[in-house]
């Protein structure tokens, strides 16, 4: 329905235009040559002046502006790129320094540890030797004491037995016979006490 109305309107409008063309003398004002020369003159004048001003003054300025902006932006991009590269190399340097100092610290630490271990070992060796010496000496002393012990014991035993015999019997007993007996006894029991 709406479409039909539109079509009618369009049709009517064409009809109207046709009527207008027919009604006017010559129809379209465009085809009336009265002001053609005037229009040509003013067109050439205004367009010519506009062309001259645009081409000589304004367009070179705009193109210059565009060029300079482009070059400036390119320069800025280049500078930014360079700065980025700089910062990257700086970062690399920094990393290297860190790495180097780390390895240095490690080496130092290792050295110190080795030195300490060496010192400790040397001291321990000395101490061990001292201890060994002392042990050896003590053993020697013990050995000496042990070696002397049976004689002393035998002597004590002989003395005590002669005294006992004197007290018991009341007579002097030959020392040699007592010592023979004690020696015999001690030899028999000695293994039991001082078993070597």
């Amino acid at each position, binding site marked *: 329905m709406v479409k039909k109305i539109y079509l009618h309107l369009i049709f009517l409008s064409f009809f109207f*235009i046709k009527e*207008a063309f027919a009604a006017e003398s010559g129809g*379209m*004002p465009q085809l009336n040559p009265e002001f053609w020369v*005037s229009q040509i003159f003013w067109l050439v004048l*205004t*367009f010519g002046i*506009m062309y001259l001003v645009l*081409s000589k003054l304004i*367009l070179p300025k705009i193109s210059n502006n565009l060029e300079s902006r482009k070059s400036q932006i390119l320069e800025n991009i280049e500078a930014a790129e360079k700065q980025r590269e700089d910062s990257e190399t700086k970062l690399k340097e920094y990393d290297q320094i860190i790495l180097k100092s780390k390895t240095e610290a490690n080496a130092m630490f290792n050295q110190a540890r080795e030195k300490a271990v060496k010192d400790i070992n040397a001291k321990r060796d000395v101490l061990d030797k001292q201890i060994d010496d002392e042990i050896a000496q003590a053993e020697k002393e013990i050995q000496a004491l042990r070696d002397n012990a049976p004689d002393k014991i035998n002597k004590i035993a002989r003395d005590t037995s002669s005294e006992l015999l004197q007290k018991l019997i009341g007579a002097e007993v030959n020392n040699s016979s007592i010592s023979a007996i004690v020696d015999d006894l001690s030899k028999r029991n000695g293994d039991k006490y001082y078993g070597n």
Partner: protein
Amino acid sequence: MAANPMSQFDVYRIGPEIKVGAFDISFTNASLFMIISTVSILLIFNLGSKKNAILPNKIQLLAELSYTFVAKMISDTAGSKAKPYFAFIFSLFMFVLFCNMFGMIPYTFTVTSHIIVTFVLAAFIFIGVTVIGFIKHGFGYLKLFVPSGVPAILLPLIVVIEIISYLSRPISLSVRLFANMMAGHTMMKVFGGFVISLGIVGGWLPLSFSVALTGLEILVAFLQAYVFAILTCIYLNDALNLHH
């Protein structure tokens, strides 16, 4: 304004009659709108090129976008050889665009709706392009009328057709712009007249149609300026880079 839809195209004298010899070059409403268009163009582009800020303001952006738009249009259609003609095509595009757009304001006069104006522009382009073609290629420019790869038996016919199509260029170029502008404005006027004659009851339909037409006409105003400029570029391309 009269109810006649064609009366909007009337040219009338403003001020006294000026005569040079036998020619009447009086200042008319057409002259007025030519001056308004060119002065607006010069003002806008002068303002847009005054300061060179890295971050352009609106008017500078407008000027620079128009510049790059036209520059791209020319380099796309006519190549790098057309660079010396950039200023002319830019002026042409801007002049036609501004005349068309000023014509969209009610009670104004549309300079480009007159066949004589568009024909003078088109004829100038036609003559200029032909002269450039003959300067660049000498009589070799006539090869334009002899397309390659055409059977010999068809050649006479093709050459005649090519010559006719070449000679009809200024007519088609001028009539296209003039007819589009005139038809659009007439349609708008007619529908405006319907709004009045149908009144408050039935006027809404032509009114809505008129609103839609206004949008369409603004598009047409831009498009016709673009077509006018791009056809000039194509003709220039024929003259600069002989393809046939």
